[in-house]
């Protein structure tokens, strides 16, 4: 319990900065939408004439970018990237920072099992992610409704946000796994950075060149495409399963490696 409190405390500032930035981003985006929507009707007609191949190249699919939902979905792509950065770094650092802070010998000599320490840290990560998502969700609902003149889209935002949450869980688990396997926080953070950048770049490559879409399994950013969620209101079961497996295995790795880790003092 103490470890959990301590972790929540030490991540509070970064969580506040992240939440603040998300609120600002959503606000700025929706503010822009109000201007964009006015000029939008003529653009919209042109959009609909697009051949499907072109539309999918822009990641639009069936989306109508001039509707507030389509506009929000374009934003959602960027949220995903930011959320990924937040989650993977949080997971990596929270697990591996004790040695850097020279607090490892303080923490690990306490009569607390290592597995319990890991559990507290993972729980703190989970809570941070939940807050991040709730803030993003609330800000989205509030600012979208402020500028929405048509149909309410709150249920769609909820669906999108749930997939954002799953993606964050995946990245946080990967981060924690790396933090546990790699002994040095600096190297762990570098590897996490490399993973995040690669997954992002792969998702760009897939957008650009459809023939390599078998790489889709490598990048969580592509597991739950916004256009599909909006259209069908469901998540692909195979990718849900894959996400679940990824999360569970990386958490298992975290426990396993922390249990046997040589602590550098």
């Amino acid at each position, binding site marked *: 319990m103490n470890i959990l409190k301590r972790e929540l405390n030490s991540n509070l500032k*970064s969580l506040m*900065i*992240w939440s603040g*930035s998300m609120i600002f*981003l959503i606000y*700025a*985006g929706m503010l*822009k939408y109000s201007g*964009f929507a006015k000029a939008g009707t003529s*653009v919209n007609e*042109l*959009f609909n004439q697009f*051949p499907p*191949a*072109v539309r999918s*190249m*822009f990641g639009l699919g069936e989306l109508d*970018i001039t509707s507030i939902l389509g506009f929000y979905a*374009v*934003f959602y792509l*960027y949220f995903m*990237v*930011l959320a990924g*950065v*937040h989650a993977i*770094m*949080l997971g990596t*650092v929270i697990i591996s*920072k004790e040695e*850097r*802070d020279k607090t490892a010998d303080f923490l690990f000599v306490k009569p607390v099992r290592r597995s319990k320490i890991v559990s507290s840290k993972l729980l703190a990560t989970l809570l941070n992610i939940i807050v991040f998502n709730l803030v993003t969700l609330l800000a989205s609902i509030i600012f979208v409704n402020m500028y929405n003149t048509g149909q309410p889209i709150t249920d769609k935002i909820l669906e999108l946000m749930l997939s954002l949450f799953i993606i964050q869980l995946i990245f946080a688990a990967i981060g924690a796994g790396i933090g546990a396997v790699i002994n040095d*926080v*600096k190297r762990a*953070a*570098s590897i*996490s*950075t*490399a993973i*995040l*950048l690669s997954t992002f*770049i792969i998702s*760009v*490559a897939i957008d*650009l*060149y459809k*023939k*390599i879409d078998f790489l889709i399994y490598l990048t969580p950013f592509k597991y739950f495409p916004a256009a599909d969620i909006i259209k069908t209101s469901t998540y692909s079961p195979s990718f849900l399963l894959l996400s679940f497996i990824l999360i569970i295995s990386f958490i298992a790795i975290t426990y396993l490696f922390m249990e046997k880790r040589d602590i550098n003092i």
Partner: protein
Amino acid sequence: MNIFSQELKMSAASMIYWTASIVLFVLLFMFMYPPISKDIQVIESILSNFPPELRRALGMTTLDLSQVLGFYGFLFIYILLIGSVYAMKSGISVLSEEIRSKTADFLLVKPVPRTRIVSAKILSILSNLIVQNLLFMFISYIIISSYVNGSLDTRTFILINLSLFQVQLFFAAVGLFLSVLIKKIKTVLPVSLGVVFAFFVIQMINQSLNDPKLAYITPFAYFDVSKIIQNVGYDTSFLIINIIIIFILTALTYIIYQKKDIPSL
């Protein structure tokens, strides 16, 4: 001089890794160029009939992806992204690393004025960035020219590549400034990734909305590749803004570091 060479020694490996990753990125994406360019020629012919506002909204601007340089320009935003993360990371870590690795009281008691320390460290970043850019420009020139029929427009190519250096200087300066402003930065990469991606997302939004005011916020917009290709030159006002920002942030770094309280052991 000692400080400078010590810094170079410590950062050489990381510079090589990051340069290699950008080169790898260009190499992989250029593999996709021949098949994509064929697809795109068809799409281009459709797109060229659309009004420029619409093309901008799609993030296509005036880049002709069926041309090698147009395609390279499209890739370049991601090269900028990776390069900026590296520059920002170098900027943040170079001064704050002494505090993290508890070597600050070793360095700062030496009979060397703090301004000299800052200069030596900034110089080391500068040389790393210059070497990185030269290496990258040289290798990517070889890669790109192997895809060109006829001769490559060298002037445009160099102008595009030089924008990497200038954006990197911006982020290095931001990093330096943040590292003296914030009392204690525990891990460098999460901060660098967060800041760079935030600017990146602003640029993505700016690209789809094309708001002239938004462009001033993010250095990624200062050097718009499509405009560089079109005009074979930079936008002078943005060029000057970038230099002024870099100058101010660097000056502030000197001033703040002069009086900064450095925690000792």
